[in-house]
């Protein structure tokens, strides 16, 4: 037992998700992530259950905790009532709080998630806006998507789901400011805003300053590949 484990065990998600695991592998057997990655929910449970800070540190510094797709099939099947997917959520939070997320490539993608979904939420009240999937990031969507992207305002009006109006039908309306305030208050009270800030801070620490974070962000915008930005080794 150590500091990391103590911190982790305070997470409400751990309290709801982690009972004694009997290492049966029911979860790993049907986990879609385990089928494609070097990932196993049973292994995650095993590490957390060991309460070994060294192992927990290694886990939350690695790509592994980011492979889970949160499908919660594991929760449906676990004969001990565990929820490995919930444990993963707590581990992700701990990884962000401690800045260790920035040690792994999948972890660093949290910056992209934060700036896209996180900032969208706080600004507009949506995780994803219709304008976000830009054609250069999704070449597989083809010419139709390019056309739509260019004529989005006009086309949505044809369909009766106009953009950016209050009280209009469809999923691109403006959420009234008083509701936005409420939403931001929830994000603040539940600690989500703190976590988002931690992501920015953790990235700056790992990459060597805020300007480097912007370069990482720009590199991703240009290439849609978080691996291409090269981290400078600290001397």
């Amino acid at each position, binding site marked *: 037992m150590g500091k990391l484990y103590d911190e982790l065990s305070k997470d409400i998600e751990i309290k709801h998700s982690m009972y004694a695991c*009997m290492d049966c*592998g*029911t979860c*790993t*057997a049907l*986990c879609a992530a*385990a089928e494609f990655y070097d990932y196993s929910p049973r292994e995650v449970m095993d590490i957390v259950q060991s309460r070994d800070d060294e192992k927990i540190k290694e886990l939350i510094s690695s790509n592994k905790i980011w492979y889970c797709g949160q499908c919660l099939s594991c929760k449906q099947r676990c*004969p001990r009532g565990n929820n490995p997917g919930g444990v993963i959520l707590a581990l992700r939070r701990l990884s962000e709080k401690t800045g260790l997320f920035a040690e792994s490539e999948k972890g660093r993608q949290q910056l992209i998630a934060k700036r896209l979904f996180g900032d969208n939420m706080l600004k507009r009240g949506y995780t994803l806006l219709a304008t976000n999937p830009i054609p250069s990031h999704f070449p597989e969507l083809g010419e139709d998507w390019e056309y739509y992207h260019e004529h989005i305002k006009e086309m949505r009006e044809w369909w009766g789901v106009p953009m950016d109006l209050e009280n209009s039908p469809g999923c691109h309306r403006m959420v009234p400011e008083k509701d936005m305030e409420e939403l931001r208050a929830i994000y603040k009270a539940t600690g989500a805003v703190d976590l988002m800030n931690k992501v920015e801070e953790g990235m700056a620490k790992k990459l060597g300053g805020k300007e480097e974070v912007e370069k990482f962000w720009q590199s991703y915008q240009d290439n849609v590949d978080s691996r291409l930005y090269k981290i400078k080794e600290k001397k």
Partner: protein
Amino acid sequence: MANVTIIGGGVAGMAAAGVLTKRGHEVTLMERDSKLGGHVGKWYKVFPDITDASEIVDELKGDLNGVKIKTNADVKEIEKSGKKFKVNGTSADAVLIAAGFEPFDATLKEEYGYGIYDNVVTSLELDEMLKTGKLKTKDGKTPKSVGLVHCVGSRDEKVNNNYCSRVCCTNVIKSGIEIKEHYPGTDVFCFYMDVRAYGRGYEELYRKSQEECGVTFIRSRLSEANENADKTLLLRVEDTLAGKPMKINVDLLVLMVGMCPSVNAGSLKNSIGLETGDDRFFKTKNKHSANNESNIPGVFYAGATTGPKSIVESITDGRAAAAEIHSYLS
């Protein structure tokens, strides 16, 4: 002479009846089925010595001279007035509940496909197949591979059965040996979490199944079964010793169903205020020193009615209960 009524004509009830009648009591043995023997009476071979189950039942029957046997007597409640009891109209000075167990209803584990896929059967159906010498898939072929699944309906919060049914591990081992002996060309895969072969001769049987018969044990718990187009079954497990998720095909899948309390346990309990544990089996007065007594003087328990037991344990428990009843009545 005192009257004792025994509810349940399985091995525990029969064993108790044999002792009590020898001690001079008037014993009435009530069995819901049309004949004595309970579950054991229907089975083929039993562990650890792969003996005929019918031999055990016949031996116990031999001790029943003088016992009043009532078959087709389903007992749902007990009446009590003062120190006397009435069971289906028969008065008694003491009652022994030896109501046994029900096999777990495998349809509740929907992900295993029992009742949905053609070639998923329970351990009871496997026993029947071995008894009649017809180990076959639905389309009549001898299976080239059989999967035996441990802990179906046991050690599983999802079906509200947290307990271990205790005998199914050794039943897997015994079944594996039987399959290999009669069908040497058939592969047998057992999906286990722990092998709980706790009784005398059980571990030796486990070893035999591996060393002499080549039964394969894969440390895992079945996550789900899916039917292939050819009606074989695709199983998803993790080999937890190798730490790798795997898929494996078998021709026949056997679910080793656990034990659940008798369907009458609830109504018997409510009729005179007996107690059950979290596992819904009857609760004894003391788990160590009064394991045949109930919370009501004059009502006793024997066999799997107080939790999963092997045959030998049920017989021993029945006789222990008989000794307790004899002391109570003298």
